[in-house]
């Protein structure tokens, strides 16, 4: 039996490498995804285009403005005298933020009254808007506290040391510099494996059906299970290879730390691959042509990646979507990926995910094999 298996494996690998299209799938998507998710996909903000409107022209207003010009989050493009000008710039999309300091700002501060700071944010990109306004508040309040201190100092210097205050010490864990890349790139191992294994495997199986070689092979003494293993094993290996490749690029090129244990990651990877192979087989049983397989795969892969927590937190999704995500193997694999890369946790924490993938994988494969049996008879 192993002899036959070896033959099938070799044939399959030759076909994949020889066919220009599958060769492209092996190289194109990995490169593209790495580039995009390593560089383009980011939730970080920096150099948000900003204009300041200073109608007070006091030392205090200039001081406040300088805090914004020196901040890496904002790129102050202009300092204007007219609020309407700023509004127009936002309307035209030439700037994202406009900060207005009205006349009388410094006076109010010195008197101990509340001085207003008007912020207009172009929220067409609500994510940037949210984070940007949060930073604005932080900078403004930082300045306010300093102003407050000065005020107290000028009135009752002896109290300065006694004023209570509560500060928040922010400790971001696992990703202290808050790099989006650290979030996405480990995830790319999952999304890419999904893409590769599902498309390549389902194509390979369906191609045989299309050409008619399927019947040819079935006439030989090969058993259906052998056939399935022979068909899927090459893509299992390819999936493994590509995952490791991305892992290496991620660690050495993108400098993403790997704090966990490789056996844990490998176990997760293997279980996940089995789930994906099962899915691919299922797709191939409902597709008569490679074309159909392509469309079906597309419709399966898209929601899978969207619902899995790859780019967007599952917690923020509606309840019914969160429930649906429990059926998606990628969801669990992403936890394993981020767990081993960034958190450095092991089986003791990740066993629920492993169990879930094992369960889904087993179920999926069984259904696929049963359907396959029926389809071949």
């Amino acid at each position, binding site marked *: 039996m192993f002899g036959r298996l070896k033959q099938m494996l070799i044939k399959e690998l030759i076909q994949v490498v020889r066919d220009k299209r599958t060769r492209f799938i092996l190289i194109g998507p990995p490169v593209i995804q790495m580039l995009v998710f390593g560089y383009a996909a980011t939730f970080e903000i920096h150099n948000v*285009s900003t204009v300041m409107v200073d109608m007070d022209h006091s030392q205090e207003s200039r001081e406040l403005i300088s805090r914004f010009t020196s901040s890496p989050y904002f790129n102050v493009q202009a300092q204007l005298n007219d609020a309407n000008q700023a509004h127009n710039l*936002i309307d035209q999309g030439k700037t994202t933020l406009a900060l207005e300091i009205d006349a009388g700002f410094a006076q109010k501060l010195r008197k101990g009254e509340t001085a207003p700071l008007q912020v207009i944010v172009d929220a067409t990109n*609500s994510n940037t808007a949210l984070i940007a306004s949060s930073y604005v508040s932080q900078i403004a309040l930082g300045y306010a506290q300093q102003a407050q201190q000065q005020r107290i100092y000028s009135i009752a210097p002896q109290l300065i040391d006694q004023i209570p205050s509560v*500060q928040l010490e922010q400790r971001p864990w696992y990703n202290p510099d808050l790099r989006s890349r650290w979030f996405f790139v480990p995830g790319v191992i999952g999304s890419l494996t999904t893409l590769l294994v599902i498309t390549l495997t389902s194509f390979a199986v369906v191609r045989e059906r299309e050409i008619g070689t399927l019947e040819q092979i079935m006439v030989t003494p090969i058993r259906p299970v052998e056939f399935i293993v022979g068909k899927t094993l090459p893509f299992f290996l390819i999936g493994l290879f590509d995952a490791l490749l991305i892992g290496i690029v991620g660690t050495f090129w993108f400098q993403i730390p790997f704090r966990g244990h490789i056996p844990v990651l490998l176990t997760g990877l293997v279980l996940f691959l089995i789930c994906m192979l099962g899915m691919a087989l299922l797709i191939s049983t409902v597709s008569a042509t490679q074309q159909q397989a392509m469309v079906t795969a597309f419709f399966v892969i898209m929601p899978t990646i969207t619902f899995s927590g790859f780019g967007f937190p599952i917690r923020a999704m509606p309840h019914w979507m969160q429930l649906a995500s429990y059926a998606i193997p990628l969801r669990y694999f992403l936890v394993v990926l981020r767990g081993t890369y960034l958190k450095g946790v092991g089986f003791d924490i990740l066993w629920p995910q492993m169990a879930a993938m094992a369960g889904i994988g087993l179920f999926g494969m069984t259904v696929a094999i049963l359907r396959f049996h029926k389809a071949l008879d």
Partner: protein
Amino acid sequence: MSLTRLLAVARKEVLQIIRDTRSLAIVVVMPVTLMLLFGYGVNLDLKELPVYVCDQDGSQQSQDLLKRFQSTKYFEIVRVVDNVPAIEHALDSGEAKMGIVIPWNFSQRLSQGGSVQVQAIVDATDDNTANVLMGYAQGVVQGYSTGIQVAWLQAHGLTLQPVPINVATRTWYNEDLESSAFIIPGVLALVMSVIGAFLTSLTIAREWERGSMEQLISTPVTAMEIMLGKLAPYFVLGMIDVAVCAVLAIAWFHVPFRGSYMTLAFSSALFLVTVLSLGFFISVVAKSQLAASQIALIITFLPAFLLSGFLFSIEQMPVVLQGITYLFPARYYVTLLKKIFLKGTPAAMLTADLLPLAGFTVVLALVATRSFHKRLE
């Protein structure tokens, strides 16, 4: 140009679309599916994130602070523990996204005067969530701190405005900061890419593969009539889908629509013609349906998804990638969509985006027309 012949080709194309379930599914089901997927799934609005608390002080003041956290919709205090390692473990396992540590001398320091620090340990694997969380936490702590200071100052005979600077933020165009408003208009670009390029890329290649092309070009029908006859049904279907998606966006997802329907229709028509031309060209060049559809997906759908500003803001990408985005028509279309929906920008002010898009339309249409010859070689 014979209208009879053109219509004959168009009618055949329509019949073929209707007869092919998967094409039909793409035209009918896919737009709605994509809208629902992205409308609900891609959500960056976070709430009720699980928080562990380690209150080493247990005083009235620390309780007050914790109450403030609990009363916001962003945090949900799930467990109170008595040691920091328990928090670390909760972060590792994902049971908590944030841990708050209040030091044992919290109330003591406050009554003595001086500052005291509260720690927020945040799971930063997802930097976006972490940013938002830390921003909210900062807000809560500052509010609490200010309250304490005001009370203290008053007790010492000073009245000071609690908040020296009042940051009044107005979010323009997207008042509720709903991520769906920012994402949904862009879904139209995805839908157009799939229908316009993906489906169209199959038409010519399919005729070659099945052999019907030879018969077709042996008749008097001209290359132009074939091209227009084939693309016309997809244009009509595409525009219908634009309408369906727009209705869904406005009526179901309550995305504000402040612009003009004419401008929306015009921009969509331009983009549609662009992707149709591209799809047609790919179909002529690629020869096989499989290759054509893959190329179409990679050249139109992926850029529309990742590099058009649909999901990830272009301004935040590295400069090189920002430059690359100018090469994709989807970038201009997505910008137009957002401006038309959310900002209500009148057509006259949209020239900076309309002109490049129109340029692409013209160039690609010309390329497509010239690419197809009624020849067998």
